[in-house]
Protein backbone atom coordinates (compact mmCIF):
# COMPACT_ATOMS: atom_id res chain seq x y z
CA UNK A 1 0.00 0.00 0.00
CA UNK A 2 1.10 3.52 -0.75
CA UNK A 3 2.02 5.84 2.06
CA UNK A 4 -0.70 8.23 0.94
CA UNK A 5 -3.41 5.57 1.27
CA UNK A 6 -2.29 4.70 4.79
CA UNK A 7 -2.24 8.37 5.73
CA UNK A 8 -5.75 8.75 4.35
CA UNK A 9 -7.03 5.73 6.29
CA UNK A 10 -5.41 6.97 9.49
CA UNK A 11 -6.86 10.48 9.22
CA UNK A 12 -10.33 9.33 8.16
CA UNK A 13 -10.65 6.65 10.82
CA UNK A 14 -9.31 9.05 13.45
CA UNK A 15 -11.92 11.64 12.53
CA UNK A 16 -14.72 9.04 12.59
CA UNK A 17 -13.58 7.76 15.99
CA UNK A 18 -13.52 11.26 17.52
CA UNK A 19 -16.85 12.18 15.93
CA UNK A 20 -18.55 9.02 17.17
CA UNK A 21 -17.19 9.67 20.65
CA UNK A 22 -18.40 13.27 20.71
CA UNK A 23 -21.70 12.26 19.14
CA UNK A 24 -22.35 9.73 21.87
CA UNK A 25 -21.67 12.35 24.55
CA UNK A 26 -23.96 14.92 22.99
CA UNK A 27 -26.62 12.33 22.33
CA UNK A 28 -26.58 12.94 18.59
CA UNK A 29 -25.99 9.25 17.81
CA UNK A 30 -27.03 6.32 19.95
CA UNK A 31 -24.48 4.76 22.25
CA UNK A 32 -24.77 1.35 20.58
CA UNK A 33 -23.95 2.69 17.13
CA UNK A 34 -21.06 4.71 18.48
CA UNK A 35 -19.70 1.63 20.27
CA UNK A 36 -20.04 -0.51 17.15
CA UNK A 37 -18.29 2.08 15.00
CA UNK A 38 -15.49 2.37 17.52
CA UNK A 39 -14.94 -1.39 17.70
CA UNK A 40 -14.81 -1.74 13.94
CA UNK A 41 -12.69 1.30 13.13
CA UNK A 42 -10.28 1.29 16.06
CA UNK A 43 -8.07 -1.56 14.70
CA UNK A 44 -7.86 0.14 11.29
CA UNK A 45 -6.86 3.41 12.97
CA UNK A 46 -4.20 1.89 15.20
CA UNK A 47 -2.73 -0.34 12.48
CA UNK A 48 -2.48 2.52 9.99
CA UNK A 49 -0.83 4.75 12.61
CA UNK A 50 1.64 1.97 13.39
CA UNK A 51 2.45 1.42 9.73
CA UNK A 52 2.94 5.18 9.23
CA UNK A 53 5.40 5.31 12.12
CA UNK A 54 7.32 2.29 10.87
CA UNK A 55 7.61 3.49 7.26
CA UNK A 56 10.84 5.45 7.41
CA UNK A 57 11.21 8.42 5.11
CA UNK A 58 14.94 8.12 4.55
CA UNK A 59 16.90 5.13 3.31
CA UNK A 60 17.78 2.73 6.07
CA UNK A 61 20.86 0.74 6.87
CA UNK A 62 21.74 -2.35 4.86
CA UNK A 63 19.25 -4.90 6.25
CA UNK A 64 20.29 -8.23 7.67
CA UNK A 65 20.11 -10.69 4.81
CA UNK A 66 19.79 -13.93 6.79
CA UNK A 67 21.98 -16.99 6.67
CA UNK B 1 -32.99 -2.11 26.83
CA UNK B 2 -35.15 -4.96 25.55
CA UNK B 3 -33.83 -8.30 26.70
CA UNK B 4 -34.44 -11.38 24.67
CA UNK B 5 -36.64 -13.89 26.58
CA UNK B 6 -36.79 -11.48 29.56
CA UNK B 7 -33.63 -13.05 30.90
CA UNK B 8 -30.42 -11.27 31.80
CA UNK B 9 -28.26 -13.72 29.93
CA UNK B 10 -27.39 -12.56 26.49
CA UNK B 11 -28.30 -8.91 26.15
CA UNK B 12 -30.80 -7.25 23.87
CA UNK B 13 -32.66 -9.10 21.16
CA UNK B 14 -32.04 -7.64 17.71
CA UNK B 15 -34.19 -9.45 15.15
CA UNK B 16 -35.38 -12.87 14.02
CA UNK B 17 -35.88 -14.75 10.77
CA UNK B 18 -38.80 -17.08 10.15
CA UNK B 19 -37.70 -20.31 8.48
CA UNK B 20 -40.75 -22.52 8.51
CA UNK B 21 -41.06 -24.16 11.86
CA UNK B 22 -37.66 -22.91 12.98
CA UNK B 23 -37.10 -19.32 13.97
CA UNK B 24 -33.43 -18.30 14.26
CA UNK B 25 -32.87 -15.27 16.44
CA UNK B 26 -30.14 -12.67 16.78
CA UNK B 27 -29.49 -11.34 20.23
CA UNK B 28 -26.40 -9.27 21.01
CA UNK B 29 -24.74 -12.52 22.01
CA UNK B 30 -25.62 -14.69 19.04
CA UNK B 31 -25.04 -11.79 16.64
CA UNK B 32 -21.51 -11.41 18.00
CA UNK B 33 -20.84 -15.12 17.55
CA UNK B 34 -22.33 -14.90 14.05
CA UNK B 35 -20.02 -12.00 13.16
CA UNK B 36 -16.94 -13.89 14.27
CA UNK B 37 -18.04 -17.00 12.38
CA UNK B 38 -18.39 -14.86 9.24
CA UNK B 39 -15.00 -13.19 9.73
CA UNK B 40 -13.17 -16.48 10.13
CA UNK B 41 -15.05 -18.11 7.26
CA UNK B 42 -14.02 -15.22 5.02
CA UNK B 43 -10.42 -15.56 6.22
CA UNK B 44 -10.53 -19.27 5.36
CA UNK B 45 -12.04 -18.49 1.98
CA UNK B 46 -9.65 -15.81 0.86
CA UNK B 47 -6.31 -16.26 2.55
CA UNK B 48 -3.66 -18.60 1.23
CA UNK B 49 -2.24 -21.18 3.66
CA UNK B 50 1.16 -20.64 5.22
CA UNK B 51 4.25 -22.46 4.01
CA UNK B 52 5.51 -24.46 6.92
CA UNK B 53 9.27 -24.24 7.41
CA UNK B 54 11.11 -27.51 7.79
CA UNK B 55 14.79 -28.22 8.31
CA UNK B 56 16.78 -30.94 6.62
CA UNK B 57 18.57 -32.95 9.26
CA UNK B 58 22.34 -32.84 9.31
CA UNK B 59 22.79 -29.42 7.80
CA UNK B 60 21.80 -25.79 7.85
CA UNK B 61 19.41 -26.18 4.92
CA UNK B 62 15.70 -25.55 5.28
CA UNK B 63 12.79 -25.48 2.92
CA UNK B 64 9.17 -24.36 2.89
CA UNK B 65 6.56 -27.08 2.52
CA UNK B 66 3.85 -26.42 -0.04
CA UNK B 67 0.34 -27.89 -0.12
CA UNK B 68 -0.77 -29.60 -3.33
CA UNK B 69 -3.47 -27.64 -5.18
CA UNK B 70 -6.04 -30.45 -5.13
CA UNK B 71 -5.63 -30.92 -1.36
CA UNK B 72 -5.90 -27.18 -0.95
CA UNK B 73 -9.13 -27.01 -2.92
CA UNK B 74 -10.71 -29.78 -0.88
CA UNK B 75 -9.56 -28.32 2.42
CA UNK B 76 -10.99 -24.94 1.49
CA UNK B 77 -14.31 -26.46 0.49
CA UNK B 78 -14.66 -28.34 3.77
CA UNK B 79 -13.54 -25.29 5.75
CA UNK B 80 -16.27 -23.20 4.13
CA UNK B 81 -18.82 -25.95 4.80
CA UNK B 82 -17.66 -25.93 8.41
CA UNK B 83 -18.05 -22.15 8.58
CA UNK B 84 -21.56 -22.37 7.16
CA UNK B 85 -22.52 -25.03 9.68
CA UNK B 86 -21.15 -22.81 12.45
CA UNK B 87 -23.19 -19.86 11.18
CA UNK B 88 -26.30 -21.99 11.36
CA UNK B 89 -25.49 -23.43 14.77
CA UNK B 90 -24.95 -20.07 16.45
CA UNK B 91 -28.25 -18.49 15.40
CA UNK B 92 -30.76 -21.31 15.13
CA UNK B 93 -33.73 -21.13 17.45
CA UNK B 94 -34.42 -24.83 17.60
CA UNK B 95 -32.61 -27.49 19.60
CA UNK B 96 -32.86 -30.31 17.09
CA UNK B 97 -31.62 -27.99 14.37
CA UNK B 98 -28.72 -27.02 16.60
CA UNK B 99 -27.72 -30.64 17.16
CA UNK B 100 -27.83 -31.25 13.42
CA UNK B 101 -25.48 -28.36 12.81
CA UNK B 102 -23.25 -29.66 15.59
CA UNK B 103 -23.06 -33.07 13.94
CA UNK B 104 -22.21 -31.39 10.64
CA UNK B 105 -19.42 -29.45 12.32
CA UNK B 106 -18.01 -32.70 13.70
CA UNK B 107 -17.93 -34.24 10.23
CA UNK B 108 -16.42 -31.20 8.51
CA UNK B 109 -13.74 -30.96 11.20
CA UNK B 110 -12.57 -34.42 10.26
CA UNK B 111 -12.78 -33.48 6.61
CA UNK B 112 -10.49 -30.49 7.14
CA UNK B 113 -7.83 -32.72 8.63
CA UNK B 114 -8.37 -35.54 6.14
CA UNK B 115 -6.30 -33.86 3.45
CA UNK B 116 -3.20 -33.83 5.63
CA UNK B 117 -0.59 -36.39 4.64
CA UNK B 118 1.07 -36.87 8.01
CA UNK B 119 0.33 -40.22 9.61
CA UNK B 120 0.53 -38.80 13.10
CA UNK B 121 -2.09 -36.14 12.35
CA UNK B 122 -4.36 -38.65 10.63
CA UNK B 123 -4.15 -41.01 13.61
CA UNK B 124 -5.22 -38.21 15.94
CA UNK B 125 -8.01 -37.25 13.58
CA UNK B 126 -9.18 -40.86 13.51
CA UNK B 127 -9.46 -41.00 17.29
CA UNK B 128 -11.24 -37.68 17.28
CA UNK B 129 -13.58 -38.98 14.59
CA UNK B 130 -14.51 -41.96 16.74
CA UNK B 131 -15.36 -39.61 19.61
CA UNK B 132 -17.40 -37.40 17.28
CA UNK B 133 -19.37 -40.46 16.19
CA UNK B 134 -20.05 -41.63 19.74
CA UNK B 135 -21.01 -38.08 20.62
CA UNK B 136 -24.00 -38.19 18.25
CA UNK B 137 -25.77 -40.48 20.72
CA UNK B 138 -25.79 -38.09 23.73
CA UNK B 139 -26.26 -35.11 21.39
CA UNK B 140 -29.42 -36.34 19.70
CA UNK B 141 -30.44 -38.17 22.87
CA UNK B 142 -30.49 -34.85 24.70
CA UNK B 143 -32.63 -33.22 22.00
CA UNK B 144 -34.98 -36.21 21.88
CA UNK B 145 -35.39 -36.15 25.64
CA UNK B 146 -36.28 -32.46 25.57
CA UNK B 147 -38.90 -33.14 22.89
CA UNK B 148 -40.30 -36.12 24.77
CA UNK B 149 -40.63 -34.35 28.09
CA UNK B 150 -41.69 -30.87 27.07
CA UNK B 151 -43.36 -31.49 23.73
CA UNK B 152 -41.41 -28.79 21.98
CA UNK B 153 -37.93 -28.15 20.62
CA UNK B 154 -38.20 -24.42 20.12
CA UNK B 155 -35.92 -22.32 22.30
CA UNK B 156 -38.57 -19.61 22.09
CA UNK B 157 -41.15 -21.74 23.89
CA UNK B 158 -38.67 -23.36 26.28
CA UNK B 159 -36.97 -20.15 27.36
CA UNK B 160 -37.28 -19.33 31.01
CA UNK B 161 -39.81 -21.98 31.97
CA UNK B 162 -37.16 -24.43 33.20
CA UNK B 163 -39.10 -27.42 31.89
CA UNK B 164 -36.16 -29.14 30.19
CA UNK B 165 -34.75 -31.91 32.42
CA UNK B 166 -31.21 -31.46 33.70
CA UNK B 167 -30.26 -34.85 32.30
CA UNK B 168 -31.11 -33.65 28.79
CA UNK B 169 -29.03 -30.51 29.28
CA UNK B 170 -26.02 -32.51 30.44
CA UNK B 171 -26.39 -34.91 27.52
CA UNK B 172 -26.52 -31.96 25.14
CA UNK B 173 -23.37 -30.48 26.67
CA UNK B 174 -21.64 -33.84 26.55
CA UNK B 175 -22.59 -34.26 22.91
CA UNK B 176 -21.18 -30.87 21.98
CA UNK B 177 -18.03 -31.65 23.94
CA UNK B 178 -17.62 -34.80 21.91
CA UNK B 179 -18.21 -32.98 18.64
CA UNK B 180 -15.32 -30.69 19.36
CA UNK B 181 -14.50 -29.46 22.84
CA UNK B 182 -12.62 -30.25 26.04
CA UNK B 183 -11.37 -32.59 27.44
CA UNK B 184 -10.36 -33.70 23.98
CA UNK B 185 -7.83 -30.99 23.40
CA UNK B 186 -5.09 -33.48 23.02
CA UNK B 187 -6.71 -34.79 19.84
CA UNK B 188 -7.13 -31.20 18.68
CA UNK B 189 -3.57 -30.29 19.58
CA UNK B 190 -2.20 -33.10 17.46
CA UNK B 191 -4.55 -32.12 14.64
CA UNK B 192 -3.15 -28.59 14.83
CA UNK B 193 0.19 -29.91 13.61
CA UNK B 194 -1.32 -30.30 10.15
CA UNK B 195 -0.55 -27.64 7.60
CA UNK B 196 -2.97 -25.00 6.32
CA UNK B 197 -3.48 -22.43 9.05
CA UNK B 198 -6.71 -20.72 7.91
CA UNK B 199 -8.47 -24.07 7.51
CA UNK B 200 -7.14 -25.70 10.66
CA UNK B 201 -8.22 -22.58 12.49
CA UNK B 202 -11.81 -23.27 11.38
CA UNK B 203 -11.69 -26.46 13.49
CA UNK B 204 -11.12 -24.35 16.58
CA UNK B 205 -13.46 -21.55 15.60
CA UNK B 206 -16.35 -23.91 15.00
CA UNK B 207 -15.90 -25.89 18.18
CA UNK B 208 -15.45 -22.84 20.41
CA UNK B 209 -18.48 -21.06 18.96
CA UNK B 210 -20.50 -24.25 19.25
CA UNK B 211 -19.53 -24.54 22.88
CA UNK B 212 -20.43 -20.90 23.55
CA UNK B 213 -23.80 -21.46 21.93
CA UNK B 214 -24.59 -24.59 23.90
CA UNK B 215 -23.75 -22.77 27.13
CA UNK B 216 -26.24 -20.09 26.16
CA UNK B 217 -28.92 -22.64 25.26
CA UNK B 218 -28.45 -24.53 28.52
CA UNK B 219 -28.74 -21.33 30.55
CA UNK B 220 -31.77 -20.09 28.62
CA UNK B 221 -33.95 -23.22 28.55
Amino acid at each position, binding site marked *: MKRLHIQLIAILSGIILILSSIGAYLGAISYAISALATIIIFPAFIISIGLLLSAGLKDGDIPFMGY | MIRVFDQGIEGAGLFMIE*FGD*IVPYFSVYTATLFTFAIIFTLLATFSIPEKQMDIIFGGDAYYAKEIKPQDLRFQRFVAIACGTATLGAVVTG*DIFNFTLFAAMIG*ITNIGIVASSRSHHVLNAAYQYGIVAMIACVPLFGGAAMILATT*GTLSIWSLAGIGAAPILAKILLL*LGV*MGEGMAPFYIGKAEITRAQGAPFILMVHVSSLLLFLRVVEIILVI
Partner: protein
Amino acid sequence: MIRRLSHILSDFDKLSQIYAVLVIIVIIGGILTIPSLEYQADRLYPKTIHPESPLDPYDRGGTPFEKTEVLAEYPENSPYLGYVTAYLTPFSLALATLTHHVGTTIVAHPGGIIDEILYNTRGLDTVVETSILFVAFGVASFLFLRRDEE
Protein backbone atom coordinates in the same frame (compact mmCIF):
# COMPACT_ATOMS: atom_id res chain seq x y z
CA MET C 1 -1.66 -37.80 41.27
CA ILE C 2 -1.74 -34.77 39.02
CA ARG C 3 1.18 -36.13 37.06
CA ARG C 4 -0.65 -39.43 36.53
CA LEU C 5 -3.80 -37.59 35.44
CA SER C 6 -1.88 -35.50 32.95
CA HIS C 7 -0.22 -38.63 31.64
CA ILE C 8 -3.64 -40.10 30.82
CA LEU C 9 -4.90 -36.86 29.30
CA SER C 10 -1.85 -36.49 27.09
CA ASP C 11 -2.42 -39.72 25.14
CA PHE C 12 -4.81 -39.28 22.26
CA ASP C 13 -5.34 -43.04 21.88
CA LYS C 14 -7.32 -42.85 25.12
CA LEU C 15 -9.67 -40.15 23.83
CA SER C 16 -12.65 -42.39 23.15
CA GLN C 17 -12.17 -44.19 26.46
CA ILE C 18 -12.21 -40.97 28.46
CA TYR C 19 -15.28 -39.85 26.58
CA ALA C 20 -17.00 -43.19 27.10
CA VAL C 21 -16.35 -42.97 30.85
CA LEU C 22 -17.95 -39.51 30.92
CA VAL C 23 -21.00 -40.70 28.98
CA ILE C 24 -21.40 -43.74 31.24
CA ILE C 25 -21.27 -41.57 34.38
CA VAL C 26 -23.93 -39.25 33.00
CA ILE C 27 -26.17 -42.08 31.83
CA ILE C 28 -25.96 -43.92 35.18
CA GLY C 29 -26.85 -40.67 36.91
CA GLY C 30 -29.55 -40.10 34.30
CA ILE C 31 -31.26 -43.46 34.70
CA LEU C 32 -32.00 -42.52 38.31
CA THR C 33 -33.85 -39.38 37.22
CA ILE C 34 -35.99 -41.06 34.54
CA PRO C 35 -39.01 -41.77 36.80
CA SER C 36 -39.36 -38.03 37.35
CA LEU C 37 -39.74 -37.33 33.60
CA GLU C 38 -43.09 -37.04 31.92
CA TYR C 39 -43.91 -37.99 28.34
CA GLN C 40 -45.59 -35.53 25.93
CA ALA C 41 -47.02 -37.26 22.88
CA ASP C 42 -48.74 -34.51 20.91
CA ARG C 43 -45.81 -34.08 18.49
CA LEU C 44 -46.02 -37.65 17.24
CA TYR C 45 -47.05 -37.95 13.65
CA PRO C 46 -50.02 -40.28 13.15
CA LYS C 47 -49.08 -42.78 10.45
CA THR C 48 -51.66 -45.03 8.84
CA ILE C 49 -51.07 -47.44 5.97
CA HIS C 50 -53.38 -47.60 2.94
CA PRO C 51 -52.20 -50.45 0.67
CA GLU C 52 -54.55 -49.35 -2.12
CA SER C 53 -53.15 -45.83 -2.37
CA PRO C 54 -50.87 -45.06 -5.34
CA LEU C 55 -48.43 -43.51 -2.88
CA ASP C 56 -48.44 -46.69 -0.80
CA PRO C 57 -45.26 -47.03 1.24
CA TYR C 58 -44.79 -43.32 1.04
CA ASP C 59 -48.29 -42.23 1.96
CA ARG C 60 -48.28 -40.10 5.04
CA GLY C 61 -51.96 -39.30 4.93
CA GLY C 62 -53.59 -35.92 4.80
CA THR C 63 -54.78 -34.00 1.77
CA PRO C 64 -52.01 -32.34 -0.21
CA PHE C 65 -51.62 -28.61 0.46
CA GLU C 66 -53.97 -28.82 3.42
CA LYS C 67 -53.79 -28.31 7.16
CA THR C 68 -51.87 -30.71 9.37
CA GLU C 69 -52.97 -32.33 12.61
CA VAL C 70 -49.51 -32.34 14.09
CA LEU C 71 -48.97 -29.59 16.60
CA ALA C 72 -46.58 -27.13 14.98
CA GLU C 73 -44.47 -24.74 16.94
CA TYR C 74 -45.41 -21.89 14.65
CA PRO C 75 -48.58 -22.99 12.81
CA GLU C 76 -48.67 -19.76 10.85
CA ASN C 77 -45.23 -20.52 9.38
CA SER C 78 -45.69 -24.16 8.51
CA PRO C 79 -49.23 -25.24 7.75
CA TYR C 80 -48.26 -28.56 6.11
CA LEU C 81 -45.98 -29.88 8.82
CA GLY C 82 -45.51 -33.62 9.10
CA TYR C 83 -47.36 -34.76 6.01
CA VAL C 84 -44.80 -35.31 3.34
CA THR C 85 -47.71 -35.89 0.99
CA ALA C 86 -48.26 -32.22 1.44
CA TYR C 87 -44.91 -31.54 -0.19
CA LEU C 88 -45.81 -33.33 -3.45
CA THR C 89 -45.49 -31.15 -6.52
CA PRO C 90 -48.52 -30.81 -8.80
CA PHE C 91 -46.70 -33.00 -11.31
CA SER C 92 -46.23 -35.85 -8.81
CA LEU C 93 -49.85 -35.51 -7.85
CA ALA C 94 -50.93 -35.87 -11.47
CA LEU C 95 -48.62 -38.88 -11.78
CA ALA C 96 -50.15 -40.42 -8.68
CA THR C 97 -53.60 -40.33 -10.21
CA LEU C 98 -52.34 -42.06 -13.38
CA THR C 99 -50.19 -44.87 -12.01
CA HIS C 100 -50.06 -47.05 -8.94
CA HIS C 101 -46.31 -46.92 -8.48
CA VAL C 102 -45.39 -43.38 -7.54
CA GLY C 103 -44.93 -44.32 -3.91
CA THR C 104 -42.58 -47.23 -4.64
CA THR C 105 -40.62 -45.05 -7.06
CA ILE C 106 -40.13 -42.37 -4.46
CA VAL C 107 -39.01 -44.84 -1.83
CA ALA C 108 -36.74 -46.68 -4.27
CA HIS C 109 -34.43 -43.75 -4.96
CA PRO C 110 -31.94 -42.36 -2.45
CA GLY C 111 -33.70 -39.06 -1.90
CA GLY C 112 -36.89 -40.89 -1.02
CA ILE C 113 -35.12 -43.04 1.52
CA ILE C 114 -33.54 -40.00 3.13
CA ASP C 115 -36.97 -38.49 3.19
CA GLU C 116 -38.44 -41.60 4.75
CA ILE C 117 -35.80 -41.48 7.48
CA LEU C 118 -36.38 -37.83 8.14
CA TYR C 119 -40.10 -38.02 7.92
CA ASN C 120 -40.97 -35.53 10.57
CA THR C 121 -38.42 -32.83 10.00
CA ARG C 122 -39.18 -29.27 9.33
CA GLY C 123 -37.90 -26.67 6.88
CA LEU C 124 -34.27 -25.94 7.62
CA ASP C 125 -33.73 -29.36 9.24
CA THR C 126 -34.20 -31.17 5.96
CA VAL C 127 -31.62 -28.93 4.28
CA VAL C 128 -29.08 -29.47 7.04
CA GLU C 129 -29.55 -33.23 7.11
CA THR C 130 -28.95 -33.61 3.42
CA SER C 131 -25.92 -31.33 3.58
CA ILE C 132 -24.47 -33.47 6.36
CA LEU C 133 -24.82 -36.52 4.14
CA PHE C 134 -23.35 -34.62 1.22
CA VAL C 135 -20.30 -33.43 3.17
CA ALA C 136 -19.72 -36.86 4.68
CA PHE C 137 -19.88 -38.36 1.20
CA GLY C 138 -17.47 -35.69 -0.06
CA VAL C 139 -14.92 -36.46 2.65
CA ALA C 140 -15.22 -40.21 2.09
CA SER C 141 -14.80 -39.91 -1.68
CA PHE C 142 -11.83 -37.57 -1.28
CA LEU C 143 -10.11 -40.13 0.92
CA PHE C 144 -11.05 -42.92 -1.48
CA LEU C 145 -9.61 -41.09 -4.47
CA ARG C 146 -6.43 -40.29 -2.59
CA ARG C 147 -5.87 -43.88 -1.46
CA ASP C 148 -3.63 -44.80 -4.43
CA GLU C 149 -1.34 -41.78 -4.23
CA GLU C 150 0.53 -42.79 -1.10
